[in-house]
């Protein structure tokens, strides 16, 4: 979230789109109720289904799954053509006035630089036009035909209300109603907040859906404002912490990035990531990359990391390709991956196309599962009749289960959607032989190190020299790990302004990432978490909920990264002179000498507004990007592409380019995509409030609340197919079939799309062959193997199915 849960209460308009907060985030949803009760907020839900969120909405609007870019692109067109943007904000705080390079083109659904056989773009033509001074050129009058704003107007002029309705199935009048409501927040003292979750991420264009929302919010001047923002509701405890700590294959902690295999030169690696400012006088915070990186290396390898050996750069893995989950299972499927560790993860339910997963897991030599539960993955080799019809005699994979404790059986911090690191305390000992995850990993590490010591190996250095200074080496404590992430001084840190003053003594914990150095004098396991456990104590364990501003920014409750800041980009809540846009929601302001206020200001604290430092300090141009230059795989402006399995078989905007041209598809998976002639209905998977992923099917109470697998269809489709509520039905895709009870409902309506009637079939995910619920099928039996082109998040939300009475 750019903002945080409590801040939702400050919104004037709350939009839930690409998510279902009431069901998937019921506790956080209280702040929507609060916004309605005490801020007179208008609450809108846009979803293919009338969800439990919609049951409390002032307005519900149906949309065909996978068409959110078309919808929001239409909103952009409405705001621009009806002049409903916050002008001063857009001119000063976005890249609207920056000039786009002449080489950039968009024609017939493709941006310039497309490499068709490689399914990827050469992005070199997507930059700004650079001036002789080395900065991007700009036209503050917004008249230049290639300034971002005018390029944007042109790009979205195709998204007329008629086109939007034709693609999304949302009736035109209803679509215009949404535009009107959103437009009311283009004034400085009204805000919209957007709340989304996997309903946006799990598409082949998921990242661009989120970007389209960001574009809308930038045009409305709603980023950095209380009650505004683009707010990702994270689904899994502790998924925010996982991303922050860099547990994706291409990341290092704190969103630093792993080098690729071509980057063998340390200085080139660092230079590429140490961004140069694109406009004068900007903070350009990523210029600090070397400090974060060197401190991380010092944390990992201690005294072994020296300037002379480039801080152990050679020990860092260099990626040939990204090893996302779909690639992992592709490699398994091809027999190229022999062993697999699965920690707190049930991929048999969470990766698309179950048949392929079973085939892949069956070829492994070994599978290690670290989990509190007997997951479906750990039992993939068991025959459970129709629900998991495998022949155990033919599966040679050795499966090793290491029972772990659950979150309540260990100390530690969980990071919520609002970026708060909240410390929690162990409530009970893990049962039986179960151990904490850190203890299990430490045990494996120590054993491996011992083997490398005894037997040597091709490349033992990184493991043999890893810092491992825990009081009990095989049980690193949560406290020790948290302090390691916070970082410490390796020698006395001297005040640059006063050399007689020692800021942090050798060995002491750092106050925050501003103290990090690139000379090896600091160690820090995750720069973003620096400040969370200082010499003053555990900031994450703070529980003072006093709220002097009334905005809900409880600065002494837990710790919010970065720097305990509650609302990102909050400098943008002020006009260029440093005065809050909304006098009733004063977040930060310039007091004549410094930035101050109800939040930790997101700007250099002593930079006077007259210096012109802009609010988006992580961008080298200092402003929010309406145009993403080279950062997105499929283009600088979000464009509507159909799901890979589309019920209309075409893209009304450009029939030659139907689906995301930059999305990666493995050979074999492409052939398994289904077509609307055999699978005419738009399938979509989702969660129910009664269950949590695949965990709670193991708990009795949740099983009582929602005991048996079902799918949802509208009354019209049910009538067509002769299906009654409570009937057993079979839902099939080109990859497999499941059977479930039918819930027949008024809450799913057929939509008119491109001259066709499109029905949705809703497939909740929570069942499987293990647990205490009635046995069921893993829903990903149905889903296609393709993901977002940037994040490789699978397209679980849009695929094609057929349905019939079982």
């Amino acid at each position, binding site marked *: 979230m750019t903002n945080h849960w409590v801040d939702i209460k400050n919104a004037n308009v709350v939009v839930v789109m690409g998510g279902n907060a009431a069901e998937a985030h019921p506790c956080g949803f209280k702040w929507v*109720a609060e916004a309605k*009760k005490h801020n007179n907020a208008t609450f809108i839900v846009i979803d293919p289904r009338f969800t439990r969120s919609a049951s*409390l909405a002032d307005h519900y609007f149906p949309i065909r799954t996978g068409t959110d870019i078309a919808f929001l692109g239409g909103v952009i067109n409405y705001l621009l053509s009806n002049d409903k943007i916050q002008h001063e904000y857009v001119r000063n705080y976005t890249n609207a006035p920056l000039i786009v390079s002449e080489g950039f083109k968009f024609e017939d659904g493709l941006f310039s630089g497309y490499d068709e056989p490689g399914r990827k773009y050469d992005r070199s033509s997507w930059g700004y036009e650079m001036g002789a001074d080395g900065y991007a050129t700009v036209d503050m009058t917004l008249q230049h035909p290639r300034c971002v704003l005018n390029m944007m107007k042109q790009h979205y002029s195709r998204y007329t209300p008629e086109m939007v309705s034709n693609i999304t199935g949302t009736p035109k009048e209803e679509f215009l109603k949404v535009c009107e409501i959103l437009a009311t927040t283009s004034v400085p003292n009204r805000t919209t907040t957007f709340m989304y979750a996997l309903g946006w991420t799990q598409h082949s264009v998921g990242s661009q859906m989120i970007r389209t929302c960001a574009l809308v919010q930038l045009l409305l001047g709603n980023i950095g404002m209380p009650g505004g923002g683009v707010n990702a509701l994270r689904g899994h405890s502790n998924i925010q912490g996982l991303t922050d700590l860099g547990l994706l294959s291409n990341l290092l902690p704190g969103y630093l990035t792993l080098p690729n295999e071509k980057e063998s030169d340390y200085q080139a690696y660092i230079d590429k990531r140490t961004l140069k400012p694109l406009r004068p006088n900007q903070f350009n915070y990523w210029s600090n990359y070397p400090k974060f990186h060197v401190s991380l290396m010092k944390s990992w390898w201690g005294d072994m990391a020296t300037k002379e050996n480039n801080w152990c750069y050679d020990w860092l893995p260099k990626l040939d390709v990204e090893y996302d989950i779909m690639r992992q299972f592709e490699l398994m499927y091809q027999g190229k991956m022999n062993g697999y560790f699965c920690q707190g993860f049930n991929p048999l339910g969470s990766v698309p196309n179950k048949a392929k997963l079973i085939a892949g897991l069956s070829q492994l030599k070994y599978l290690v599962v670290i989990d509190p539960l007997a997951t479906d993955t750990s039992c993939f080799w068991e025959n459970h009749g129709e629900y998991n019809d495998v022949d155990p005699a033919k599966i040679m994979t050795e499966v090793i289960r290491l029972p772990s404790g659950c979150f309540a059986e260990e100390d530690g911090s969980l990071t919520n959607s609002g970026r708060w690191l909240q410390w929690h305390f162990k409530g009970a000992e893990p049962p039986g032989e179960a151990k904490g995850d850190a203890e299990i990993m430490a045990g494996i590490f120590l054993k491996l190190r011992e083997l490398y010591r005894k037997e040597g190996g091709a490349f033992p250095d990184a493991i043999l020299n890893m810092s491992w200074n825990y009081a009990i080496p095989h049980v690193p404590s949560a406290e020790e790990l948290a302090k390691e992430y916070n970082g410490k001084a390796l020698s006395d840190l001297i005040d640059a302004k006063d050399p007689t003053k020692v800021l942090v003594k050798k060995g002491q914990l750092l106050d925050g990432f501003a103290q990090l150095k690139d000379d090896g004098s600091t160690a820090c396991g995750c720069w973003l978490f620096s400040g969370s456990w200082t010499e003053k104590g555990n900031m994450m364990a703070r529980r003072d909920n006093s709220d002097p501003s009334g905005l809900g920014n409880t600065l002494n409750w837990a710790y919010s990264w970065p720097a305990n800041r509650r609302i990102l980009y909050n400098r943008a809540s002020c006009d260029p002179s440093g005065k809050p846009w909304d006098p009733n929601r004063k977040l930060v302001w310039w007091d004549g000498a410094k930035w101050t206020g109800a939040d930790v200001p997101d700007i250099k604290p002593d930079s006077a507004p007259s210096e012109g430092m802009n609010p988006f300090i992580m961008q080298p141009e200092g402003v929010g990007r309406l145009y993403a230059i080279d950062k997105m795989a499929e283009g600088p402006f979000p464009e509507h592409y159909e799901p890979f399995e589309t019920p209309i078989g075409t893209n009304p905007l450009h029939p030659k380019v139907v689906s995301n041209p930059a999305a990666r598809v493995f050979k074999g998976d492409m052939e398994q995509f289904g077509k609307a002639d055999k699978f005419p209905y738009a399938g979509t998977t989702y969660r129910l409030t009664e269950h949590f992923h695949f965990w709670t099917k193991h708990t009795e*109470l949740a099983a*009582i609340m929602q005991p*048996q697998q079902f799918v949802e269809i509208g009354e019209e489709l049910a009538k067509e197919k002769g299906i009654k509520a*409570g*009937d057993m039905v079979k839902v099939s895709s080109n990859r497999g079939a499941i059977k479930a009870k039918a819930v027949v409902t*008024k809450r799913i309506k057929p939509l008119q799309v491109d001259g066709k009637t499109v029905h949705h079939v809703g497939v909740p995910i929570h069942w499987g062959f293990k647990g205490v619920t009635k046995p069921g099928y893993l829903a990903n039996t149905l889903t296609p193997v393709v993901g977002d082109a940037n994040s490789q998040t699978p397209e679980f939300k849009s695929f094609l199915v057929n349905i019939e009475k079982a």
Partner: protein
Amino acid sequence: MALQSLDIERRSATTTPSPSQRQTMEVAKLIDVTTCIGCKACQVACMEWNDVRDEIGTNVGVYDNPPDLSGASWTVMRYTEHEENGKLEWLIRKDGCMHCADPGCLKACPAPGAIIQYANGIVDFHEENCIGCGYCITGCPFNVPRISKKDGKAYKCTLCSDRVAVGMEPACIKACPTGALQFGSKERMKMYAEERIVDLKSRGFEQAGLYDPPGVGGTHVMYVLHHADRPELYAKLPNNPRISPMVKVWKGISKPAAIAGLGLIAAGALLHLVSRGRTVVLQEHEQAAKKESES
């Protein structure tokens, strides 16, 4: 169960006057249907606090699960899809005991001390005194009590009388994530409801209102409804609930003069239950009751 005898207002099939020395605040649970997301956290909390578990059932084609109140499910969510002027509403109502000021169950109950009304308004079942005759079901205008399949006794929401007795809110209130469930003095709950009704009217629900039906003397579980003029939209919430006329019979015979007879009936009921089962008892007694009310 844990409230002291000083707090007892009425006891089933008992004529001894109740103590009246103590001043007790009247409490109420307010169910704001318009803020409820139907998450069932209240159902889970109810089972957890009371240490009861319903069966792991089946899906019957709707979201409702368990599908009905039972000996272990003392509250359930009831989901209704309602369409009006082309606009769909998903009305979600938490169903359970209403804790009537004039409780039909208590009046109908022949077993001394099986049903207690406390001075704070809570109507509680004391199952150790319950004979399983099912008269409370007949007496209830909301069709709430259920006879347990396990022990043949009647169960329903206690409004967590044990928690309330020590100054805590009922378990469902504590678990509710959105503030749809509120608990406090009945007076305060009415004031809170007023605020909600003003908000709902401003959003176009002109008939929004409080459900506190006078036919049963008001209730200690109240609803805020968008359509207070049509409570039956919400899974048949009665429009004007009243105690069944049959219950008057029991009220009649539980006068001091009839106390001996009552004892006999209760004992007879128990015998029947033991020897011939519940249904028979029910039928016989209902016939007797009808006869008396006709005469």
